[in-house]
């Protein structure tokens, strides 16, 4: 069974600083996708970044980047130059070849002005 683990229920970061959110997953598949979603108080889940498992290069989207370690089944999210608008719940998600998504329990990120 696929599981996604986020071991940091809460994190905080000073505005303009860098923070890393951790995620590990368990799967026996070799072809899959990984995602980070952000859920602000408005409740809508917003895609932050995605990574294809067959790509060795880490994905980057502006201030957001990932550290994907396939052998270790680790998929961490780095947020650089943190902004107040980055405050939200962050969910790591695994997508299996059958297009079924599994989510972690989330990390609540606070940005301190």
């Amino acid at each position, binding site marked *: 069974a696929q599981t*996604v683990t986020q071991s940091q229920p809460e994190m905080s970061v000073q505005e303009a600083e860098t923070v890393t959110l951790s995620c590990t997953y368990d799967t026996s598949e070799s072809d899959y*996708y990984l*995602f980070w*979603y952000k859920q602000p108080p*408005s*409740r*809508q*889940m*917003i*895609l932050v970044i*995605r990574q*294809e498992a067959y790509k060795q290069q880490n994905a980057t989207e502006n201030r957001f980047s990932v550290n994907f370690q396939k052998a270790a089944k680790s998929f961490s999210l780095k947020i650089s130059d943190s902004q107040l608008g980055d405050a939200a719940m962050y*969910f790591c*998600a695994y*997508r299996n*070849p*059958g*297009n*079924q*998504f*599994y*989510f*972690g*329990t*989330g990390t609540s990120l606070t940005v301190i002005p």
Partner: protein
Amino acid sequence: DAGVTQSPTHLIKTRGQQVTLRCSPKSGHDTVSWYQQALGQGPQFIFQYYEEEERQRGNFPDRFSGHQFPNYSSELNVNALLLGDSALYLCASSLGRDRGSSPLHFGNGTRLTVT
């Protein structure tokens, strides 16, 4: 470009009642998935609809059922409501059942409270 829309936004029901939640997918999307998000938890997969059929199902009882219409919109029905069904119900759409890295696009959810 219309995103995923869900209705209603909030709903209060009594134990034993039945509820129907509705979802319109993002324009151009043909696959709809439903998730249950309990307070303080991540979304849990309920089921996925593609070409008007349930294609995959998570670990939810038969009290949870759904439907997809020819215009790709979808309904989630829950019968015999329990207190534990209180949660945020998220609808997500995507393009194609197995197509590449198509991410999920989520609606704002329906907050269901069962009393």
